[in-house]
């Protein structure tokens, strides 16, 4: 396998509320398609770990944070607009 950068994501959700659930679905689908075998998603349920969200400065769910590779980027929402998401995550260049 060609060594590629590992993408580490952190997704803040509020249980399985509709937008959070959709965001997780969209992220997983995108990662499988664009970053096969080179991503890792950490899910943080703010209903269970409110302190963690506060500490991370997350005000809304769902919020996606791309931790690695730098730069760190944050996207709020259901991640339904794929092109904007890819652009934001800096994956457009990877794809081209």
């Amino acid at each position, binding site marked *: 396998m060609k060594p590629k950068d590992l993408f580490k994501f952190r997704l803040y*959700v*509020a*249980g*399985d*509320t*509709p*937008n*959070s659930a959709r*965001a997780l679905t969209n992220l997983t689908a995108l990662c499988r398609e664009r970053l096969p075998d080179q991503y890792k998603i950490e899910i943080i349920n*703010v*209903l269970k770990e*409110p*302190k963690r*969200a*506060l500490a991370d400065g*997350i*005000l*809304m*769910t*769902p919020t996606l944070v791309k931790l690695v590779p730098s730069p760190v980027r944050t996207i*709020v*929402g*259901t991640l*339904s607009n794929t092109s904007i998401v890819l652009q934001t995550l800096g994956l457009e260049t990877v794809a081209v």
Partner: protein
Amino acid sequence: MNRKQSAPSADANEEISALIETLFETEQRLEELTGGEVDTVAGRDGRTFMLRRAQEQSRDSEAGKQAAILNVLPAHIALLDAQGTIVSVNEAWRRFANANVLHAPGPGLGLNYLEICDRAQGDYSTEAQQVAAGIRSVLGRGQKSFSIEYPCHSPTEQRWFLLTVTPLSDDRANGAVVMHLNITERKRSEEKQRASELEFRSMAESMPQMVWMTRPDGWTTYVNQRWVDYSGLSFEESLGHGWGEVFHPDDQQLAAESWQRAVAVGTDHITECRIRRADGTYRWMLIRGVAVRDQAGLITKWMGTCTDIDDLKRAGAALRESEEMLRGVMESSHDCIKILDREGRLLWMNEGGQKIMEIDDFAVVDRQPWTSFWPPDEQAAAMAALERGRNNHVGKFTGSCPTAKGSPRWWEVVITPMLNDTGFPEKLLSVSRDITERKQAEVETQRLHRQLVDASRQAGMAEVATSVLHNVGNVLNSVNVSCSLILGKVRQSRISSVAKTAELLNEHAGDLTEFLTNDQTGKKIPEYLGKLAVRLAEEQKAVLDEVQLLTGNIEHIKDIINVQQSHARNIGGVRETLPIEGLVEEALRMNDGVLRRHRIKVTREFAEVPMVSMEKHKVLQILVNLIRNAKHALTDGGGQDKQLILRIGRNNGNVVVSVSDNGIGIPAENMTRIFGHGFTTKKDGHGFGLHSGALAAQEMGGSLAAESDGPGTGATFTLSLPLDGHGNN
């Protein structure tokens, strides 16, 4: 948040309304800003505020999901509060409410389930009380959960239920979930399983074979008592692979390979091997294993048996061996071996037999009566042999019968009964041996024998003739002597003196008186005539005496000739019943002259014996021979005391005549040869006398034996003749 216990004032109410308006607008604005894609926002203190829409959606979907899940479950589920009151039920509970005695009629919402159980009456009240106790225990945190299986049979069918009681939450005593699950199917199949297991066990235990069962991988899970009894291994020792050790060391590898192959492929397993019995002996077993499969075709277990085939195996081996041997015997046999049924019909014939019998196609003779193959004059013997076989004896006979192609053959036939299981002679075994060559040899032997006998008889006749001539010659000597004596006497007779006297008397015819009275010569005539008469009378007597002797000798010659003639007459082998003494005397008489001339002393020791049936000339010939041999032995010995002893006696149904002499005897080396053809000790002998004598004795069923202690001790020849007239010849 202000938590006043008192009711809000009018001002406060106004402020609350304003704040609610603000809250609404705030939320509205948040939704707008986030495009409706956000569920929660965090407060300054990190508290999470769920936006209303998310809350509503979440609540709706959660409740719907849970209700849907609960309603599709086949189990009947009710939620009890901490007091045991039914607060919620699922669809199944609702539908089934009336079917179960432990359910309240109707959905039962609001009823206290504990009370229902407490009040239960009838067949299932015991279970109902157990359930109530269980629920109380769970509600009171005494038990984590409770479950019970209980029967609930309706008049038409048997039903079983599983009731479980689970606390509503882990940490607070706030109610419980009661679930009834219909487990009738499971129960039934369990029952069935148990029943079939029981059936299998009882069947396995009642089987004469050893029965075993293994897991699909060959691990033994069950053996029946018979196995335990046979192997001496305990039930536990036999489980797993424990029973491998009782296989015969020579069979272990083969049996294991065969079994592993069967397990791997899933085919039925069959093998023969020796398995050790409790007493340490190995017996042959037939091991069969069959894979038991489920509906999907997967092997669920192996079942099998061990059948003791040791006796069979041994019997089989013995049988094979004996069959092979039998076949070998049949094939190599030069006899015609047949199997006949009781009626004597031909059922089977060995191939060698068909060859000998010159039968090209057995079908031609199949089922034919065996006796019909024999020529008419042999059939009686064949029938008799067959009858003996039928009566469980052995029938034997010898007969001549041509083969299928007409070659003349002699057969020695033995018929033996073939017994069935009950000892009944169901079939007959007939073995015919071709004895043609033997028979031909016998015929040839007989012919030779007859030739020999004829020759010996002729020789015997010659012997008799010799003896006759010799005797006649002896007598003729005497006759000659007598004749010369008579001739001499007659020649020297005084007849001439009579004639001279008559002439003198004629000369003096005229003066006869003068001449007789005065003449010197004439005067002596009367005296002379008287003396002459005396002399002539003497002469006559001497001649008469001699003539008498002559007559006697001539009579003897006649006797000898008569004997010879009677011998000649009896040459046809006619048996006569005669006193043996007479024959002995006759034989002596025939040798009388010889014995007398050699001054042999004859002693007779005759016992009283019955008359014997015999052929006179043969006995006479033998006796003459024996006496003449004795005479030779005596004269050759040169001793002065020549003894010949003739004895007549009885011995074991025989009349015995023995001729003993004290002559030269017989050396031991000659004892075995003296009866042989051509053996003689005489210078002019031809060695035929004793040989033909022995043959003649045998022909009459008797015997001729010789005894001698060696040279110079004399010899005894003994003729034995059977009293019943015929011996074993």
